[in-house]
């Protein structure tokens, strides 16, 4: 099968393992946006996120021969992205991150614009989603945006499946609290 046909991700990885540059371009074209967005939500810096995807796909180029196909290629990509993002975050000062998170939450309650935005529950919800902790943000994104199953999230985040379920539950509770602070009542919890 040529890569111009609808080659599966697994086929592309097998070709990449043989040094097929064209297969790499196809795989990159297929996944780079989602990988970038997942990385960007974690590192919150476009420049860093762009560097991140180059590193992720370079790892794919180097490690393709070791891919055993036990999980979906997209799951493997997100797991690599997460690892790279956490490494990038560790390089930044913890204080800087904490300040950033605090500002995001303060913005929710103090910014006069929020009062206007209360009328638009959608805007408020998106703003609160941004204000979640990195841990909660990633699990929300993986389940809702990247449409990963419980098992796949457990593999990417490297936590037990039950922890995946409870972590998302508490992320949603935190989201509800942030919304309540912003004056948006949703009827749950």
């Amino acid at each position, binding site marked *: 099968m040529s890569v111009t046909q609808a080659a599966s991700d697994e086929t592309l990885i097998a*070709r990449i*393992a*043989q*040094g*097929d*540059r064209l297969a*790499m*371009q196809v795989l*990159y074209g297929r996944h*780079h*946006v989602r990988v*970038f*967005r997942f990385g*960007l*939500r974690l590192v919150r810096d*476009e420049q860093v*996120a*762009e*560097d991140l*995807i*180059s590193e992720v*796909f*370079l790892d794919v*180029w*180097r490690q393709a*021969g070791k891919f055993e196909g036990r999980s979906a290629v997209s799951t493997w990509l997100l797991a690599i992205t997460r690892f790279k993002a956490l490494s990038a975050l560790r390089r930044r000062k913890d204080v800087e991150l904490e300040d950033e998170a605090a500002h995001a939450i303060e913005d929710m309650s103090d910014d006069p614009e929020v009062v206007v935005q209360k009328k638009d*529950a*959608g805007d408020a*919800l*998106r703003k609160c*989603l*941004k204000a979640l902790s990195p841990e909660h943000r990633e699990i*929300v*994104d993986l*389940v*809702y*945006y990247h*449409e*990963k*199953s*419980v098992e796949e999230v457990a593999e990417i985040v490297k936590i037990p499946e039950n922890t995946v*379920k*409870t972590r*998302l*539950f508490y992320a*949603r509770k935190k*989201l*509800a609290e942030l919304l309540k602070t912003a004056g948006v009542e*949703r*009827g*749950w*919890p």
Partner: protein
Amino acid sequence: MMALSKQMQEHDPSEIELLLPWYAAGTLKPGDVKRVEEALASDPALARQYAAIQREYAETIALNETLGAPSRRAMQKLFAAIDAEPTQAATPSRGLGRRLLGFFESLSPRALAWSASFGILLVLAQAGIIAAVLMRSQPATFQTASLNISDRGLPEPLTRAIGPQTRAIGPTQLSAASVHALVRFAPDARISDITTLLNNYKATIIDGARGGLFTLQLGDRPMSQDEVSGLIARLQREKIVNLAVAAP
């Protein structure tokens, strides 16, 4: 159920509540889908929670979609890095070779010795059988002076050569029993494809790969020049073959 759900919200979440986000995203196992649907049908509080989840789901997608895409710089950087990488070995047999090596390494010296002895015996037995078959099929190497086939109107005997020489029978020439071809496989040819091709052509790799060319022995019978040309042309048309030429 409703009371139970309320109680769960105040304390620990129920298993069904925990599964709601995956139900909304359509990534739940079929068995769990049924459980969630049954619970939603009978528990209004759970249904309200599910409505909130659907809004979270939609807004998470909307938020991510606003994040845009990386610039071309990321791709350029990636492929510049790939170009700077050492060339990856594109030998399709590398994996198989490594697996075979691993297998032999896993054998104990004793098992390896027994295997080797058995292999030698097998080769000797095979050689004996081949020799016996050839001896039986070999026509007489002499001819009585009084026998003149053409005088009697009999067909000329079809002789089968063991050596590399060719013999004439009528207007066409039979090639040697071993027809050889030099073949270069496509870089992306997989070992399984090569094996299938070898089987289809009853071919054996007898030498290679010098300069990426393998010497193949084709077929198990003598062929006319036309047959050899046809076979080489067919080989040349194979998807995984870049080059195929007749070899002396």
